């Protein structure tokens, strides 16, 4: 979980992954490229939890879809245990990477019993006979904290927290190495959120799972993640250890995100992020640094030249403030 894990083969690695959609506006409009994920490189060691944060529309979910094999990257490659994965190997990928989705009300088929939902991965991959599958379902339900008698019930009979546990059971029944959690708690009550987060933490320790944890809730990420990547308009603008990011946020966007964390004190109201309300149009991203129109410390250079990743002690940041070699924290906070 420290810098030493970089030495071994990362369990999940992305190299220059880019996903471009072609968006047609209107009946006779010409198709324009929309770069949802732009040249993203990440690597995750075994047992790590990478928190991926960013605003809606920044490409988090597209990245998750690429990792799950639901979308093929336009460029770049995804490696699991150093082995290159193509979207065509979806079945193979499915044994190693499993998703937990945001909304447990939409992620479980309402027409199927819990047993059918949880055992579907086993059925699809021809694992065991129906008796052994049933036994596996009972075991995994016990692990996620559900009694065996829920097997014959339907999703509509369950609460949101119970449903999310079912979704976790489905994700874990194939014993995958990597779990992609796409905002797994944002649709749940606050009291249930912490239960699910603790469950995810326990399961990681028990099975040595690696998580890619997508969230817009920095408090959740701070609680669970070991590393954090901040995404803006398809690019990872900062990536580092979780403590480092929360202690010394480098990128102005990271600083703004940290300011946006709501405090428990209701008197303070919604914090001012100084970002303004407008999210740039991803079809026509601003020139230079994509963030410059909203950046409080933008310089002339930011408007014309795109920044390149600059190494920091634990990761990288992509901002002209840090020049080519500057690595120590700056005074800009």
């Amino acid at each position: 979980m420290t810098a030493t894990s970089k030495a071994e083969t990362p369990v999940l690695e992305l190299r220059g992954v880019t996903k471009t959609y072609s968006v047609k506006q209107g009946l006779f409009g010409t198709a324009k490229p929309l770069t949802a994920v732009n040249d993203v490189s990440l690597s995750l060691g075994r047992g790590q939890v990478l928190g991926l944060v960013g605003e809606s529309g920044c490409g988090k979910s597209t990245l998750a879809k690429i990792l799950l094999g639901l979308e093929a990257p336009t460029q770049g490659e995804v490696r699991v245990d150093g082995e290159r994965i193509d979207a065509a190997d979806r079945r193979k990928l499915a044994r190693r990477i499993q998703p937990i989705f945001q909304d447990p009300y939409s992620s479980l088929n309402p027409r199927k019993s819990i047993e059918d939902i949880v055992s579907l991965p086993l059925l699809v991959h021809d694992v065991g006979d129906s008796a052994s599958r049933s036994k596996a379902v009972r075991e995994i339900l016990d692990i996620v904290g559900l009694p065996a008698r829920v097997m014959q019930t339907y999703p509509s009979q369950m609460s949101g927290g119970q449903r999310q546990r079912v979704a976790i059971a489905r994700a874990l029944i194939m014993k995958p190495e990597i779990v992609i959690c796409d905002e797994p708690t944002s649709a749940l009550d606050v009291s249930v959120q912490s239960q699910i987060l603790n469950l995810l933490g326990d399961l990681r320790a028990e099975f040595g799972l690696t998580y890619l944890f997508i969230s817009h809730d920095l408090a959740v990420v701070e609680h669970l993640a070991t590393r954090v990547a901040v995404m803006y308009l398809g690019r990872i603008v900062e990536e580092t250890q979780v403590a480092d990011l929360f202690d010394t946020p480098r990128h102005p966007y990271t600083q703004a995100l940290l300011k946006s964390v709501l405090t428990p004190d209701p008197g303070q109201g919604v914090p001012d992020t100084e970002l303004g309300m407008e999210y740039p149009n991803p079809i026509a991203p601003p020139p230079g640094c994509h963030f410059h129109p909203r950046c409080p410390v933008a310089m002339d250079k930011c408007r014309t030249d795109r920044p390149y990743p600059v190494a920091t002690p634990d990761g990288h940041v992509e901002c002209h403030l840090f020049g080519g070699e500057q690595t120590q924290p700056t005074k800009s906070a």
Partner: protein
Amino acid sequence: MSDMTTDPLLAQITGPTPGQLLRRRIFGHQGLLIGAVVLALLVLVALFAPVLAPHDPYAQNLLERMQPPVFLGGTWNHPLGTDHLGRDYLSRLIYGARVSLLIGTIAALISGLIGTAMGVAAGYFGGRVDAVVTFLINVRLAMPVVLVALAVVAIMGGSLQVVIVVLGLLLWDRFAVVMRSSTLQVRGREYVAAARAVGCSTPRILLSEIMPNIVNNLIVVVTLEMAHAILLEAALSFLGLGVQPPTPSWGLMVSEGKNMMLFEPWMVLIPGAVLFVLVLAINLMGDGLRDVTAPENRS
């Protein structure tokens, strides 16, 4: 982690299963029950026509032609009277139920298969498949059913088989439209993405993830199109281009009775009334099914 099972909140399972809820809604819906009972009775009548019919529906008896029904002073030998060729009206009505239900069922089945396949494919795959299907739907909607049926019957000659095939090949538009939009709706749900991430093949996703969630819409359209097909058959037969005499068909009976309508209005009213009851029963049932099978989120 097994100590978590003792959490009372987690052990709590609230409410009945979807199946129990469905049964409860069915038995609480009067229109659905009435429609279903009437339809079931008519299906039984059609199935047991040879047992129930007092006479041979084709047997002519010119000595006993144009006898009125019992309630207009006729005899119990012909409870609903006889037509202009002396054929027993009740027997022809009973055998006519076979024709109507056969045409309704098979035409709805054929068009259901065509329309569902097209609609689900368009909704799930989108893109070019969707463009082609939408174009075909528009082409189909631009063709008036009765005119096309008339043209085909004029070329091929009218018969029960021709009517069934023509109606089956013409009535798939509503299936395609409804199935397409239902599939579009369901395709975006996360359980479909989850099934894909698990490694399910496309046929499995369509059959076990998508179909169970849109089949309620399909059932409703089947009932509507069945009623539609039955009415069209009656209309075509009335125009003389559907089922050909002497086959007992309700539309044909109305057509044959229309010459006498001013003097013997019952000859038109009786088959008309039975047709009305059958279509009403089917529509009541379809309407009820739509209410009853709505998704879980309604209380």
